[in-house]
């Protein structure tokens, strides 16, 4: 079954073409990487998938549902979770609340039930707390549940962001430069971590990355973007020797 497909997606900012003819065919359970130099349109693709931007042309489908035209929260409620290139936690809220907020679509009660504390309200709230605590425990953040998010060190903030994205209960997880600001040693650990959450949460993962090491190390398939265009698509071995990729990455240091 097709899981996530993009068909001839184009996006313009004013007259500038940020993404042109983007095609994607992500299979369930796959781990795919999108790489490309700065400004290649990588984050724009995430924003198009999650509905932050509306594609100017083309279609994006998730398990047969058209995503173009839907709002971000509708798309997220279809169980697509994402993280951000620059951490975007709810900085002044507690670690627990960051994760609880992501349960919004799953919490099954109406405003009236909330205002008057009747019906499903208590049960659902209890369930959200249980699930949030479970996620925090898995990520070793449980002891920090009451801490304000902005007080966490950088590494823990990144981890909390992933925990929050998983609170959506995603089938598809979009990771936007998870290795940003990490040294090679930390990247090794991160690779192990990504593979682990994929298995544990039964995820399909699409990740954007700048770090060749990470992408080459764990992705099963890689897409290379440059100036909004897909210049290569294939397995890590195919990409590594692709002439256009070498050209685009010239000066970016050794590949792999």
């Amino acid at each position, binding site marked *: 079954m097709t899981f996530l497909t993009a068909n001839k997606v184009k996006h313009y900012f004013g007259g500038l073409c940020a993404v042109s003819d983007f095609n994607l065919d992500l299979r369930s359970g796959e781990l795919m990487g999108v790489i490309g130099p700065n400004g290649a349109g990588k984050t724009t693709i995430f924003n198009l998938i*999650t509905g932050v931007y509306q594609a100017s042309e083309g279609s994006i489908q998730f398990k047969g549902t058209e995503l173009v035209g839907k709002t971000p929260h509708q798309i997220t409620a279809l169980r697509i979770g994402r993280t951000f290139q620059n951490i975007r936690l*709810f900085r002044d*809220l507690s670690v627990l609340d960051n994760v609880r*907020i992501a349960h919004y679509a799953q919490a099954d009660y109406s405003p009236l039930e909330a205002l008057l504390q009747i019906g499903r309200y208590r049960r659902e709230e209890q369930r959200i707390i249980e699930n949030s*605590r479970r996620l925090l425990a898995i990520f070793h953040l449980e002891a920090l549940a009451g801490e304000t998010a902005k007080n966490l060190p950088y590494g823990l903030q990144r981890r909390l962001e992933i925990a929050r994205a998983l609170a959506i209960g995603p089938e598809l997880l979009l990771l936007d430069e998870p290795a940003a600001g990490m040294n090679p040693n930390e990247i090794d*650990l991160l690779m192990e971590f990504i593979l682990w959450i994929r298995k544990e949460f039964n995820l399909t993962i699409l990740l954007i990355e700048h770090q060749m090491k990470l992408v080459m190390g764990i992705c099963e398939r890689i897409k290379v973007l440059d100036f909004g265009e897909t210049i290569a698509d294939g397995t890590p071995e195919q990409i590594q020797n692709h002439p256009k990729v070498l050209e685009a990455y010239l000066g970016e240091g050794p590949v792999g």
Partner: protein
Amino acid sequence: MNGALVESREWLVAQRWLLPVLILIGFGLAFAIPEYGWFNKYVQLVMMYVGINVILAVSLNLVNGYMGEFSLAHAGFMAVGAYTSALLTMKVLPVLDYPALFPIAILAGGAMAALFGLIVAVPSFKTRGDYLALITLAFLMIVKSLIENIDYIGGPRGIPGIRKLTTLPWVFFWVVVTIWVIRNFVYSKYGRGVLSVREDEIASDLMSVNTRRVKFLAFAVSSFFAGIAGGLFAHLLQFISPRVFDIIKTTDILIMVYLGGIASIGGSILGATVYTVLLELLRPSTVAAMLSWLPDVVFEPLNEHFIQHLGIWRMVIMPLALVLVMIFWPRGMMGLREFRWFIPKRDLEAHHRGAEHEGRHDVPHGQ
């Protein structure tokens, strides 16, 4: 503070059953005070104003504190509630024969105000910050000039001769309802949605929060209670006119909210109480009465040169005090903090409960 004191304070805070008991005692007092004349009429009046202002401040805090917008429309919603309920009790409902109809008139005022709140919520979908503040200001001014231009409801002269139906028990009742409902809202998924909109609207949307719905609800609930307060106010003052609900009224409520501290129900209660009581305490007659024990030699010149002029100068002192509070205490009395009794038990526990779920050690510790 020494250890024993901290401990007894902690113990007291943990006795959550005290809150309903206190509410019951409050109700008893609300009935007893007017019945047995325990305080004079003026003090009773001030108590009712405090209550109405608590409703206004707590409800405005929902939009201005929890959601982080800067709404100036609150006096407008108040006006809608005041006019709706006053017209109902004067022209439609036979409240004299059936006093039980009074809460219905108040509720109708709240509902009408909530409808207007939904209208103001619509521009908030696309606009934020200063521009939304302006839209709410424009709304306030439009409501005011609309009322001025409708002769049926008295135009600029307003409506005199409203029945005095607002009593201390009613005010207390509505204060409790307001606090309870808003507290329930704040600690629900909708309330957390409101908070996340304040923090980062786009991230909030991407965490499945229906931001439009959440804004609709916040404005509706906030304006509903502004309308309730307006209705109580109209039936206490017995006279309303468009001038009562102008930008100065909104400013008063804003001061209470920010003095008390944003995103805090307890803060708004404190802010409204302190501000209202302080303004009353600085009245020349009150100060004179409080200082009358002084010997005449001291009192007479003090009275003549200082106390008698307080009428105007208290209006100078209050804004000055506000500026000083903002500079030296920018979060207000309890900004972003809350009375522990208002926080649902499960929230408190979830934030503090120890490692009940053992951390899973097969997780790679990376990143």
